[in-house]
């Protein structure tokens, strides 16, 4: 009973804050709404006994990624609102398409069937604690996908580093040719 009420509250808040996040005027308020949304997502994970996921959701999404968004918002300093030409000319046409898509999505829900039960039942996870269960699965059965995901992240990291370096060095410094531009060298170029 309590967990159903809790689920209902979290689901409602996720929808409300999600709607507010795309409809509020002030971008900082929008980011705050996304923060509220992340907290209720964490609440949903809690109803599934996924404690580790709850903590990581708050630490990574709310504590790091969203703060970076705020940082970008502050640095960009949006004085005036951006107006883009609409992709669909009539607003009502767009709304009809959106409702159609929503109906299509909801119509596919009955086709959803539960998969087979694995080794980790709710009881087994509660016994071993969620963190341990997750770690054991990740570093034994799912090691290869885990390593691949790690590699992709590493590539993205190096890509970001390269882009940042090139911007900083400027054209005449030739920073793009030099794989490891030295700090003092860059200072001279500026």
């Amino acid at each position, binding site marked *: 009973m309590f967990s159903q009420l809790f689920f209902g509250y979290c689901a409602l808040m996720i929808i409300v804050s999600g709607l507010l996040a795309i409809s509020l005027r*002030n971008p*900082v*308020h929008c980011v*705050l709404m996304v*923060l509220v949304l992340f907290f209720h997502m964490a609440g949903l994970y809690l109803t599934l006994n996924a*404690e*580790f996921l*709850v*903590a*990581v959701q*708050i*630490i990574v999404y*709310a*504590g*790091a990624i969203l*703060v*970076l968004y*705020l*940082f970008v918002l*502050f640095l960009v300093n949006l004085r005036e609102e951006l107006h883009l030409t609409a992709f669909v000319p009539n607003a009502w046409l767009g709304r009809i398409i959106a409702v159609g898509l929503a109906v299509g999505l909801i119509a596919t829900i009955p086709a959803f069937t539960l998969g087979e039960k694995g080794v980790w039942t709710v009881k087994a996870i509660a016994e071993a*604690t*969620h*963190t341990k269960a997750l770690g054991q699965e990740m570093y034994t059965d799912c090691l290869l996908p885990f390593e691949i995901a790690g590699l992709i992240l590493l590539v993205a990291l190096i890509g970001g580093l390269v882009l940042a370096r090139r911007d900083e060095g400027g054209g005449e410094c030739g920073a793009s040719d030099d794989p490891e531009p030295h700090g003092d060298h860059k200072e001279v170029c500026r």
Partner: protein
Amino acid sequence: MDILLLLVWIVILFIVVMLHVAYATYFERKIIGHMQVRLGPMRVGWHGLLQPIADGIKSFFKEDIIPENADRPIFLAAPIICLAAMLTSLAVLPFAKGWVLADIDIGLLFIFAMSSLASYGVVLAGWSSNSKYSFLGGMRSMAQVISYEISMGLSLVGVMLLSGSLNLSAIVEAQGDRFLGMYILPQCIGFFVFFVSMLAETNRVPFDLPEAETELVSGYCTEYSGMRYAIFFMAEYIGMMVMASIATICFLGGWHGPFPVPFFPPLWFVLKVYLFMFVFIWLRATLPRYRYDQLMGLGWKVLIPLALVNIVLTACLKAVFTLGG
């Protein structure tokens, strides 16, 4: 009935912590005063003992000024976000065996989550005040907290590896009550990294750039007055206490001491926390402030690599010892 009992415990903890916060300010002013060959507060009560109470009453009755161009709802909410996040993290701290409100399995991660939430309060205070000093203070705090949270998290991975748990009570139990069992010995690199990041995370000297008085007036809380200003201070002192408790739990063996104390089991815990608080204040009286680029360089180029090395070393040594033994 259980819920009622829990509520009573929460209220007791709240009152004790608030009194502690009030007297931590007294403690700080007295210590810094004596270190600088002054007397510190002397007028209110014997040796100024009632000074914190007087300060509290004063800040309650002061006018709460809100700047005209401030973003009102966020301006009002920011100090409360700070305080609520800090108070929430008190729930998972084990003060003695069984003296914990919520003995959850992810205690350590919960503390990280709450401390990252508290940084929102500071950032939003800086932004919503609509003043350049506040804004710069908020921005600095944001960058500082993001960078030092990484090294703090990584420095505690060694502790997690050794104890095999994220539950704070289990971490204390894993260290045992012997002196050599304390993780400060095998985890000395981790402790060093944690200690430095702890100072940065609580915005204390030498990393108090978000409220650098000489450059930014008072940083993110420049526009605050009265009770809301006091709430920021409470949040800061509770943050100090939480971080000192985490250091005590993870590295100094928590509530274990040379001999068990009857009637008041958390005595050793409290003493160790106060040792850390004293070091916090001692550093404030001694060290000058870091420059901003030095702060970032230290965080990213020294502490994070050190913490990573510590993780690899700890994991390798643990693997060798468990295979050998």
